[in-house]
């Protein structure tokens, strides 16, 4: 069993809650979709690539984003839907670069499939651009070592896990997730920090991601 190290700085768990804001913007063709993707606020791109994942987290271990779902279901452009669903979100450390990748994927597809430009979604099935307004609140959970950390991890909300893993690294443009960051800087456990950083969170359901993080930490604790 490893000796528990007391952290230089304790870890405070936060929760991140969203209110959904309507923009009044909608697209019924791929051209409109691409053009609006380039213009809408970053919080819109965030919503459609991350909120979908969170709202539908149980559906599939590799959930598509909202754009992929709409292109496939409303326009029946399966090939483009597949390309959008398989964008490796974890490679992109900012919303800006993710936005560029999505728009480029659509534009490139349109270049080679001119007829796709002529497709319209049915009335009422347009793509509605939505944005997320986030509220970050400190919870009452404050931990000083790895054992306390893993115990709290078992009971915090998925919103909290989501915030520390996804929002921290992408929306706030931090390179890694908060857990790895704290474990490295406050506990000095680089190997464990790296093991957590290696997880591709986009390929788990949130509940499975929680379990995976707990499993890695408990294995470290039992060494």
């Amino acid at each position: 069993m490893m000796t528990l190290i007391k952290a230089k700085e304790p870890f405070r768990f936060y929760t991140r809650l969203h209110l959904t804001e309507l923009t009044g913007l909608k697209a019924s063709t791929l051209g409109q979709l691409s053009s609006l993707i380039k213009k809408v606020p970053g919080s819109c791109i965030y919503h459609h690539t991350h909120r979908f994942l969170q709202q539908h987290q149980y559906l599939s271990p590799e959930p598509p984003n909202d754009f992929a779902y709409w292109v496939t279901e409303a326009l029946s452009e399966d090939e483009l839907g597949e390309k959008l669903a398989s964008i490796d979100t974890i490679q992109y450390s900012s919303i800006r670069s993710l936005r560029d990748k999505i728009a480029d994927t659509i534009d490139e597809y349109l270049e080679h499939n001119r007829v796709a430009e002529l497709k319209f979604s049915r009335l009422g099935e347009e793509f509605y651009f939505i944005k997320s307004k986030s509220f970050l609140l400190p919870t009452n959970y404050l931990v000083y070592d790895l054992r306390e950390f893993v115990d709290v991890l078992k009971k915090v909300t998925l919103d909290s896990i989501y915030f520390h893993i996804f929002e921290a690294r992408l929306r706030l443009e931090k390179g890694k997730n908060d857990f790895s960051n704290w474990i490295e800087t406050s506990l000095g456990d680089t190997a464990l920090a790296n093991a957590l950083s290696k997880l591709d969170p986009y390929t788990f359901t949130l509940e499975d991601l929680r379990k995976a993080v707990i499993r890695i930490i408990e294995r470290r604790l039992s060494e």
Partner: protein
Amino acid sequence: MIKINDYIPIVGESIIEDLRLLAQKLKGISVKHINSTSAGGGVAEILNRMTPLLKDLEVDVYWDVIRGDERFFEVTKKFHNALHGRPEKIEQADFDVFMENSRKNINEIDTGTNIVFVHDPQPIALINKKTDNKWIWRCHIDVSNPHGGVWKFLNDFIVRYDSIVFSAPIFSQPLPIKQFLISPSIDPLSDKNKELPQETIDSVLKKYNITPDKPIITQISRFDRLKDPLGVIEAYLEVRKYIDCQLILAGGTAADDPEGIQVLEEVKEKAQQDPDIHILLLPQNDIEVNALQRASTVIVQKSIREGFGLTVTEALWKAKPVVASHVGGIPFQIKHKYSGLLCHSVAGAAFALKQLLNSPEYAKKLGENGKEHIRNNFLITRHIRDYMLLFLSLYHTEDVVYF
């Protein structure tokens, strides 16, 4: 009296802890809901359940109801129909009746709370009483295609609110004020949604002479053309060619609705004494609706237009596979092939029904996904959370708010 902690076994303790954290941030802020009725209708139903829960969270919340004479409510009924896209003849005299009644309410109703939360068009003119406090207008109806000048009339009031709330993205309108999306919800502890013992379900089936010896397809809806009960029968007849099954069409009595009575007659005519089609005129009985939903193999909601479609929410919460039209708020609840099947036609509905009846494992998976989707997004606890976030948003304009 139901307490907020009663929801812990359903949504988990940490979700309720989050609600308490939010409620603390609202200390010192008073809120008043105002609508047009204290009983009957979806808005009153949700406020009846939500207000005590907000109080239990120690939010300083009140609820008041406007008053109006018969003429006023006739006019607001016309407004309601017109907003839903039905042609209505609305004259200046109607607007005058609306304003005359509104003036009385403006004089009588206290709107001195920090936040005033107005529901639907009937009390909308109370905004004339706005001082330096915050006002929200909540539109519960489908205004995606309003008819005539009613929206224009309301718009002059709407733009003076601080924020407006819609139930589905498709209802939003180009407006110069903040628009938020907050879906309605169901209460998992209400009679319509709580767990039922098998004996209760069996006794309801027995009461209506339904034998669960073959798959049951059910649509729960009032007898209304917009719910397309005739289309449901056509889809069932198509399925019936290949699969031995039965159909339940159950809905409220239509005694005060001449068109409803006519639709019911047409439904009976179409059913042509088929012993496997059960047409049930249910009085308002939530336990029976609950039991029929739980007894069903597949639930259908083949509406032509729909607000949010809470019958779909109820069915999904009971982990039932659902076939529903791609209208109103339904696509928000059902992601096609993930948490149910969406359709656009009778043929599409029939095909989806056959798929689900022939593939019980697939149907079960969709139902389980559907239930989790409702747990995460459409229960009253999420609704309470969104309302508290909405209240906080009035004081914090930035996209990311740090506390």
